């Protein structure tokens, strides 16, 4: 190593060298502030058009210098995950670390190159930054978001999916769910902004259950889930997850897999423990009220669970052989295994709900009987009547409705597995039926021969993207922007579906009114056509008298916000009145139950009803 021990003795004349500086140019610096570096961390800028008011900047701020301010005249959009609030910065506390910039999910925040603020007015140090900066001078951005600087974890924990070949070989569940490690890592991606809570029709406590999962407390997660959702095994699998659309992390990365986390919580806690958690808080004394619910779908089951927990005696009348409604007979088993649905329903039963299956109104029991035996009645019978395109040939017996085919598959009935089929429709039901039938084709004929005809173009598909992608992997051919023209029948058998090019979907007023280019036609060879273009409610069971007494609006039963019909004893909920999916039905079930409970509280007890 180098020894630098001083040896030099020095000379008194050395400092005189400094005299040479007399001839140097003086060092003069200008008085005005020097421009800051391009990367400078000066006062904040916030692009209000990008900012969604999630408040993550406030969470990361190490000095509590950021406070969220509610601004009433700002736009708000729960579905898109936008709150009418913006961050305000306290420059008495800020240390310009720019962690707020690095974590901002939208990239709206940045620090500017402006760095001078002098004032004796203390209030001037608390600012609500916009894109023009603290003094409105429009300084350019300094430290701002870059591709690599994000503090958020933008990568979702991967969810495995059965390979197409294996998926096609049966009705086994497509996705296995997260293991514990993946679930904790995925849960750690959540920033607890609560956008999902607002976006969910049921207002679920997703931030709370995600945080609980991250902390390893799965029981607490289940308890949080049950606060708003008694069909969590179902929703953890097939929910349309509006929450993930609103998720702030999804602004620049993949949204938190909120649905899979719910599923993980439900899958990892044993059933009897779930039951205990779910039923906790049930009224100890029966109320003496009796509520009848018609239809054991998601709306009816949810309302039944809520009402039973309040101490009311609840009976559900279900026409089919098993409860669940569309969840059982509409959604294919590979997306929602029956035992998971049964697990949710078992908990609902355990809360005290009585479910009478194979009991159709008008056939096994009359509406009047039910009304007479109940303090309140809720109808939630869904949409089971299939719509038809009504083009020439749709009256052929091998033109089937998607909902009938799906029901037959669940029931194990033989509906005649087609050799070549065409599904008409571009929504999730179309893909459910196409993929279910494809599995049967594979089993029976060894190959898939399935076309799906959708009116929408590829970028505006109604079905979920993953459905479309997985279907393609399973050998199903999708034809976009085509509409059915006619069905070719030869010797009494269907041979093909003729389709024409769809050139526009909506008219000038935005109403559904497809226009076709009749000159462009394509023929799809098929022996069976399956229509999946929508369903309607069949309300004939209500009886003529009640149908006439009730108020209707455009063919739908008219209800108030809580689901109450024009008859004071009758509520309606679910697809038959609102739609469009399970989670909305659950939300409607909650609303109806709350309304019923409130009305019952103010009603005299019918004699003989006290248990």
């Amino acid at each position, binding site marked *: 190593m*180098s020894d*630098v021990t*001083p040896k030099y003795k020095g*000379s008194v004349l050395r400092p005189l060298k400094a005299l040479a500086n007399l001839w140097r140019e003086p060092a003069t610096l200008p008085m005005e502030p020097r421009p800051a570096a391009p990367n400078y961390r000066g006062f904040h800028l916030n692009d209000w058009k990008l900012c969604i008011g999630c408040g993550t900047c406030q969470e990361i701020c190490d000095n509590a210098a950021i406070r969220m301010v509610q601004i009433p005249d700002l736009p708000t959009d729960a579905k898109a995950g936008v709150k009418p609030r913006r961050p305000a910065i306290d420059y008495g506390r800020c240390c310009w670390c720019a962690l707020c910039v*690095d974590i901002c999910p939208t990239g709206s925040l940045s620090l500017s190159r402006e760095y001078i603020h002098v004032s004796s007015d203390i209030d001037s140090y608390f600012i609500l930054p916009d894109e023009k900066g603290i003094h409105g001078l429009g300084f350019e951005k300094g430290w701002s978001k870059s591709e690599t600087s994000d503090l958020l974890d933008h990568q979702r924990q991967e969810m495995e999916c059965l390979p197409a070949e294996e998926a096609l070989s049966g009705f086994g569940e497509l996705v296995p769910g997260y293991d514990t490690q993946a679930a904790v890592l995925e849960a750690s991606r959540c920033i*607890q902004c609560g956008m999902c809570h607002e976006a969910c029709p049921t207002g679920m406590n997703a931030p709370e259950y995600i945080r609980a999962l991250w902390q390893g407390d799965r029981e607490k997660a289940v308890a949080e889930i049950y606060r708003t959702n008694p069909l969590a095994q179902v929703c953890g699998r097939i929910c349309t997850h509006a929450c993930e659309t609103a998720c702030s992390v999804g602004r620049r990365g993949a949204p938190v897999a909120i649905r899979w986390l719910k599923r993980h919580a439900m899958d990892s806690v044993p059933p009897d423990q779930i039951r205990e958690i779910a039923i906790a808080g049930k009224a100890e004394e029966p109320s003496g009220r009796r509520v009848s619910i018609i239809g054991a779908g998601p709306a009816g089951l949810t309302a039944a669970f809520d009402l039973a927990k309040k101490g009311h005696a609840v009976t559900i009348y279900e026409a089919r052989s098993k409860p669940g409604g569309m969840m059982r007979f509409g959604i294919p088993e590979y997306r929602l295994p029956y035992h998971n649905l049964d697990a949710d329903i078992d908990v609902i039963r355990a809360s005290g709900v009585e479910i009478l299956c194979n009991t159709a109104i008008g056939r096994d029991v009359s509406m009047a009987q039910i009304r007479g035996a109940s303090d309140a009645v809720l109808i939630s019978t869904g949409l089971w009547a299939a719509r038809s395109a009504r083009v020439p040939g749709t009256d052929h017996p091998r033109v089937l409705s998607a909902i009938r085919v799906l029901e037959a598959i669940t029931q194990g009935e033989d509906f005649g597995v087609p050799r070549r089929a065409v599904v008409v429709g571009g929504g999730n039901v179309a893909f459910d039926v196409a993929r279910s039938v494809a599995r049967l084709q594979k089993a029976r004929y060894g190959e898939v021969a399935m076309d799906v005809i959708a009116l929408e173009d590829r970028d505006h598909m109604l079905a979920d993207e993953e459905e479309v992608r997985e279907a393609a992997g399973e050998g199903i051919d999708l034809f976009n922007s085509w509409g059915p023209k006619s069905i070719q029948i030869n010797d009494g058998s269907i041979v093909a579906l003729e389709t024409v090019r769809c050139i526009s979907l909506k008219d000038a007023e935005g109403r559904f009114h497809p226009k076709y280019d009749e000159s462009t036609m394509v023929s799809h060879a098929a022996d069976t056509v399956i229509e999946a273009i929508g369903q309607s409610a069949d309300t004939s069971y209500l009886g003529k008298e009640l149908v006439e007494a009730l108020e209707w609006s455009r063919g739908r039963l008219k209800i108030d916000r809580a689901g109450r019909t024009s008859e004071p004893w009758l509520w309606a909920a679910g697809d038959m009145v609102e739609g469009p999916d399970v989670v909305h039905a659950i939300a409607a079930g909650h609303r109806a139950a709350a309304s019923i409970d409130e009305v019952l509280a103010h009603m005299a007890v019918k004699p003989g009803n006290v248990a």
Partner: protein
Amino acid sequence: MRPENYKPVRHPPSHEYELYFGPNHPGIEGNYAIRVRLKGDVVQEAITDAGYLHRGFEKIMEERLWVQNVALVPRICVPDPVPMEESYARAVETLGGIEVPERAQWIRVLMLEMSRICAHLFTFGGNAATIGLYTNMFWGVTMRDLFLDIFEEITGARIYHMYITPGGVRRDLPDGVLDRLAAVLDELERKKPEFDDLFFENAVVINRATGVGVLTQAQALAWGVTGPNLRACGLAHDVRRDDPYLVYPALKFDIPTATSGCSLARMHVRRAEVEQSVRILRQVMERLRTVGGPVRAHLPNPLAWNVPAGEAYARTESSKGELAFFAVSNGGPKPWRIQVRGPSQMHGVQVLERILEGARIEDVAQIMFSLDACPPEIDR
């Protein structure tokens, strides 16, 4: 102790008296005081008095998320903040088993060596000021400012960079910054003869600092002295070489030592270290032109990042000596314990007290500064 609470000890009427150095004194980088008992102009006893800069960092760090502390650590030592960032980040990386991408390691060394040069430039100025030479201070600070411009360009801030983060650094280098740094290094080397004239070859300095405040190697080892102060007594120990971190093993540099252990020897060691840092920086800049890749490891969302339970002791060679962060995690989102072991805790307290005994009053400030103690590091 607050100055208003200070009650001088009443001594019998004699030639013994007490002086209170500080808490604001040019002989110290920061607020710090020394009670000096004198007989004539010879120090009989010196008692250090800290606490003016106590900000409770170790306590506050327990209440913040792992990533939030990145904003806190550089503040522990104003003149040399980068080793603080490096030690903290490395402690967290050790706990979390995080691998720092190679490019980030080179950038960190760049930052560390620039910080060392800045700190030493500061010390030259301060040390000269204690013996009445202020030009050095102005020149040192001016030179340092050129480095601060580079820091500002890279990190967006001049002093508290908050740039090194667990897993790497927060941003990649801006375009062209290496060329501008090269120009600053050239300027530093061009100015070197002038600094030498002003300080190291200045008879005033030589006569005032030679043989003053001597620390023998045995004393230095017994009292836990590290860094340039230890090397000035002849022991070539440097954490960068003996307990290496980042890419230091891939770099060529000497460890300057001196044998006399006096104030001037310590300053000579620092001067030679600046030369070595320039040498290191030139190698780093060369490598940074070719080494690509990410500058930050992929880490979980900082709001919900549980660092695995365990403990880590991350040592860094700062401009003042051995800096270490002892970090304990209980597996939670916040540190359970962070201890800052600043080198000045040794040479700024017990060592200073001993070395001042027998010194003359006019040398007290000079000795204090030649040890290059950083009071905020002691106070934390």
